[in-house]
């Protein structure tokens, strides 16, 4: 199992540049901690793999149209954070009922204003973007299960300039030859 507990000592040990990203994540879903406890937030049955796939596309867009990866997330949620599948089921049902199939439609709808549904959408998005499922989807620090590294969606938005760390991009010195490319797109409207 690619499961790992990150304890308090570990965090303090994390090197200087790294700790920042984690410090940011501590407040990952701040404010939603108690929501799930206070409200009846989930459905009775976990979301199916089919529905999670459709829900992922509806919340994230075409970049989440990857059935094997969606199924891997489904399995990981089932193992590491099964209650999320209940919340996802509720979100899925409500979006279906409202006929929402794209991120634009979801964010323009009243559903996106609902704190619980919004938090569920964030939880799902976090999994796809960070490539892992947290044991507890309002605390990214509690460890969880790894699903993807290379295919985590956080890398794609900068893929034309940077690398997925540890992978190569081009010949040595590629980094010194990007000026024209960067200045061309950063000046574009």
């Amino acid at each position, binding site marked *: 199992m690619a499961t790992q507990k990150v304890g308090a000592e570990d965090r303090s040990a994390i090197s200087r540049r790294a700790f920042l990203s984690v410090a940011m994540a501590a407040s990952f879903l701040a404010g939603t901690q108690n929501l799930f406890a206070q409200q009846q937030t989930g459905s009775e049955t976990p979301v199916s793999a089919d529905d999670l796939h459709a829900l992922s596309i509806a919340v994230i867009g075409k970049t989440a149209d990857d059935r094997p990866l969606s199924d*891997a997330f489904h399995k990981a949620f089932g193992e590491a954070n099964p209650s999320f599948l209940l919340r996802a089921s509720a979100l899925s049902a409500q979006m279906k009922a409202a006929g929402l199939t794209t991120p634009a439609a979801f964010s323009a709808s009243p559903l996106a204003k609902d704190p619980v549904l919004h938090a569920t959408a964030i939880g799902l998005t976090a999994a796809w973007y960070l490539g892992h499922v947290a044991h507890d989807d309002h605390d990214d620090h509690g460890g969880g299960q790894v699903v*993807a590294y290379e295919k985590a969606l956080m890398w794609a938005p900068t893929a034309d300039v940077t690398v997925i760390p540890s992978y190569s991009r081009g010949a040595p010195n590629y980094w010194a030859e990007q000026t024209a490319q960067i200045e061309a797109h950063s000046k574009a409207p």
Partner: protein
Amino acid sequence: MVFPMKTMIGGFAAGLLFALPAMSQDQDQVARGKYVATAADCVACHTAPGGKPFAGGLPFKTPMGTIYAPNITPDPATGIGNWTDAQFLRALHDGIGANGERLYPAFPYTAFAGISDEDALAVKAYLFSLPPSVQKNHENEMQFPYNIRFLMSFWNILNFKNSGSQSVAQQADLARGAYLADALGHCAECHSPRNLTMGVDSSKYLGGGAVDGWTAFNLSSSKGEGLGGWTTAELAQYLKTGNVAGKAQAAGPMAEVVENSTSHLSDDDLNALATFIKAVPEQAASGPDRFSFGGHPTDITGYRADAGQHASEGEQLFVAACATCHMLSGSGVKDGAYPSLFHNSVTGASNPDNLVMAVLHGVERRGSINDASMPAFEDEFDDRQVASLVNYVKDMFGNPQGKVDAAEVHRLRLNQLAPSPIDTLMKVGGGIAAAVVIIALAAFFWFRRRSTSASPQPL
């Protein structure tokens, strides 16, 4: 400050003009010699790793013992500084050293016999223009009976035609290419198989050979293992850069050839060389073209979902070590700095040796476009791991035929020579017996030749 400077430049220019005619001729010859020496890649054998250029010392492991390349810098005591033109020509053309001793054919005089006197003396002029390096030659370590240099004259009878270029076609437009390939480049020394007495088997000209554990592929126009599927332009590009995307990248000794020799040839010469090689008749056609195999991307989704725990060892090593630069799809990177593993003549070869060698020893090739540098994994992977990885890469991206096992990896790791026929002969019959057989054979050919050939061998 301006005035004295002008005077100085004027004085210098006058001196230059005065000296120009005489110097120019010498300089032309030196420049020509440098080009010829580059085409013949003298530096490759006459320089030890990390040693001074042309000062010798590089060992050649043969089944008969180890030979060390000599110092050919103009140092009079340890190099060739005292050699006359005639001695130089005799060495190149006849394989006879300054003191009349027979040279071992690790020095490819069988090829250099075809070099024109003018080019040969230009090489001498170039070598003599270099700074002398004082470096004593390393004694050869030849086993009996091969330590008797005289025996080489029998070897010559068997293997030394000394008829100039062994070119397959003599049309004028191919003559330059033949000269570059045979006399200067001595391609056949590595790219033709060897016969029983370790001579170049001219009946299988450029049909593929081996050097230092690396396979020197079939360069004939065979489809499959040969170059039948290549265009002349691609071949010229390969010789210039060591890299033809979708076909092949030079590694090992061929990377050195490209780096030291062919990348410095003129475009005309490259074209002539490529045209000539493309005209070499087929040798043993076989199977699909080496570069024709497509790739199957790694299923990284399935892999990461259980942290690679169910992946094979080969896949784990590929993902962790190779995919970093060659990508999970095996496609390499866009700018071609790390090549595709599919449509690749090494992964597509049925013989896995070069893939094993690249994994063990890495790749280093400095070129006119960019440098290629792949780390060596010999300290990181054991024999079994190399075999697992190579077999995985062949399955996913290349020719699934010709798998390798740990024992073969071990042999390549130690650069142990594959057992040769002569080795077997030595083991079976003992050294003396083998020598007797060789001498008898040689004598037989000697007398036969004498009886059929009236004219002496051409220079």
